[in-house]
């Protein structure tokens, strides 16, 4: 460690002397890794190529938003954040944890980033969490909803998630069914892994075990879910809760429709996006296959007519057209990326004029934001006690190709 500190200190000292005119300013300043007078370097790993590359727009959305922040003048009349340009280094880990580990080390040890922001995927982010916590490098706003990112904060204090966690979301559906449809007979199809089980851990106690009449798992690698859906239909259930990743969910909805089963549909938010439900409609050849799907939302839907005149959605579309021409603005993942980048920018302001890794982390776990990217009424709030930045959601129903929010704001934590 010592061997590396000396050159590092020399570089920092040189950088300070070069970039700050006047000996006075340079005398007492000690800047954090990745922070200079003119820039803040942050990084993240994402599946830009490979089997999970459909998530790549998240990284692009973040990049676009940082470009915008670097070009516009902020509340302090300076470009960037307190006059510092945000440099966002993205590496492609192809959703392979072995790659994530070496690329994260590259970001920390070679690129000397200030913090990691938005790293994608539960499995890829799992092995780097102990490393980043050992090095005391903030691992902020990981792009996964696994409950562990908030729940295990005691063990990993330098890590925090962003979106509503899967358990909370599961609880929201359970509560809704118990309240509005007490005599419901629920059939559950879940992806048989940590992801699917995370949802069920929230859903089951909330809905009340007596209401679940059938429950079947499927393997994410299985080519078809036909037999599972047939089995669930035979249970005589009138409600169908599908917890999966997009491919299996689309198959399940189409199969249920083809079998002539028309239950009330509940689909977790990961798979219930406009794009995936449109695919299911096309595969089934009828809107009936997806009409009435209930899911949760926390971000404004850029495809919804409800937000056609919304200022933030308009900004989003303008930025996307400017910095990522050709990108489809209806793909909510770009919106997700920009919203997350905005949370980081607000966090960086709150970390102070001379941010340190400690002050950044402190800002991230003590957030109170009214974000214009979120559905009106929902907020971004975190505390050491409840380190789940977004924990308010709204139910939304898909009818004839569009989502309509309904009901009040649900506090999930």
């Amino acid at each position, binding site marked *: 460690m010592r061997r590396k500190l000396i050159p590092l200190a020399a570089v920092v000292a040189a950088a300070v002397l070069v970039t700050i005119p006047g000996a006075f300013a340079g005398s007492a300043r000690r800047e954090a890794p990745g922070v200079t007078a003119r820039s803040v370097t942050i990084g993240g790993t994402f599946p830009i190529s490979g089997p999970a590359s459909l998530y790549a727009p998240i990284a692009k959305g973040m990049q676009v938003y940082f470009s915008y922040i670097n070009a516009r003048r902020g509340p302090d009349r300076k470009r960037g954040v307190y006059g510092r340009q945000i440099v966002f280094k993205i590496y492609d880990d192809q959703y392979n944890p072995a790659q994530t580990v070496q690329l994260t080390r590259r970001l920390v040890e070679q690129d000397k980033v200030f913090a990691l922001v938005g790293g994608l995927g539960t499995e*890829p982010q799992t092995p780097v969490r102990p490393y980043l916590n050992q090095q005391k490098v903030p691992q902020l706003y990981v792009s996964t909803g696994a409950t562990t990112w908030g729940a295990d904060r005691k063990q990993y204090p330098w890590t925090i998630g962003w979106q509503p966690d899967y358990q909370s979301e599961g609880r929201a559906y359970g509560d809704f069914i118990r309240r509005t449809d007490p005599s419901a007979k629920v059939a559950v199809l879940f992806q048989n892994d940590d992801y699917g089980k995370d949802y069920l851990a929230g859903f089951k106690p909330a809905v009340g075990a007596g209401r679940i009449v059938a429950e079947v798992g499927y393997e994410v*690698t299985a080519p078809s879910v036909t037999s599972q859906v047939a089995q669930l239909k035979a249970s005589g259930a009138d409600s169908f809760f599908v917890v999966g990743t997009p491919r299996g969910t689309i198959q399940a909805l189409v199969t249920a429709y083809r079998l002539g089963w028309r239950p009330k549909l509940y689909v977790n938010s990961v798979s219930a996006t406009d794009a995936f439900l449109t695919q299911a409609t096309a595969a089934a050849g009828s809107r009936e296959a997806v009409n009435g799907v209930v899911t949760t939302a926390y971000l404004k839907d850029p495809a919804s007519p409800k937000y056609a005149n919304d200022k933030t959605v308009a900004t989003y579309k303008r930025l996307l057209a400017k910095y990522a021409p050709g990108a489809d603005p209806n793909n909510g993942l770009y919106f997700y990326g920009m919203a997350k980048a905005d949370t980081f920018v607000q966090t960086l302001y709150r970390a102070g004029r001379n941010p340190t890794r400690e002050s950044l982390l402190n800002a991230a776990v003590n957030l109170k934001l009214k974000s214009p990217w979120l559905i009106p009424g929902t907020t971004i709030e975190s505390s050491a006690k409840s380190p789940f930045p977004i924990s308010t959601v709204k139910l939304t129903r898909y009818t004839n190709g569009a989502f309509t929010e309904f009901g009040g704001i649900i506090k999930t934590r």
Partner: protein
Amino acid sequence: MRSTPVRFGLFAVGAAVVALLPLFVSEFRAFELARVGIYVIALLGLSVLTGYAGQISLGHGAFMAVGAYTTAILTTRYGIRDLWTIPLAGLLTGLVGFLFGFPALRLVGAYLALATFALAVAVPSLAKYGRIEEYTGGGGGLLLNLPATPFGLPLSASDWLYYLCWGLAGLLFVAAWLLVRGRIGRALRAIRENELAAVSSGISLPAFKTFAFGVSAFYGGVAGSLYAITINYVNPDTFPVGLSILLLTGVVVGGLGSLAGVVFGALFIQYLPLYASDLLDWPLSRLGLKIDTSAPGAPAVVYGLILLAVLLLGSSGAAGSLARGTRALTNSLARRP
């Protein structure tokens, strides 16, 4: 032609470079180079099987997975120190490879390649299957302890990993060399050149082929074990089909039928995919072309182009070029009075 003193000299120089390198590079480079050492081990095994015995394997990622899971399960479930699990992982994987050698006996050429490819596809997914999942952690995988320097050695964790991986690589290099230089190596090469001729000169195909599979898998298992230790995690995504193809690429680039070439092959498969886009950025920006080399798919295209160029330029791999160099050196030494 083959001058042993020159080869010993080169090996000694190589060993010295490997031993001293951590003094001159950052901890991050040491960590990256540790993975090169791991690839060297895997490629040595593949070199014995494919380069010497002529049996194409597109499934070496599967052997690495078996070794990695052995280490992961033994350390997380039974609390065994990671260091001691390395030989166990090697032996268990060697046994698996040996057993796989029997059905493989019936297959040649492209059929064998496909059968081993099936192994690469199936084995990582097995970790998600039924009762096995209780041990492997399924898709969620197993999280190991962060690598740390044992026995109070005065080394950083990255330097320790470097010496561990390269120490074993050196040891296994010598072992492979001893194996292929004598009678066994001749038998394996005979099988590669002509099975019929090999059998008629008294070489037992079943014995040598299954042996080659066993040895090769042993190396793969050791490499997998080290892989799990350095990334402190295993799950099925850690061993994509691409890994097996990458390993075969490494052996071919290094030079089939050469042990020294695997070092070049290992450097190639570690660094080229990582820096492919940077490599292209430089000439493109010189030419004033604005092409987004970080666009999805661009690094893969660059990687493919460079791979093609390497294969066309040096048809016998890096080892071929090295052999030419060695020959020139030997000749010039011999000419001296």
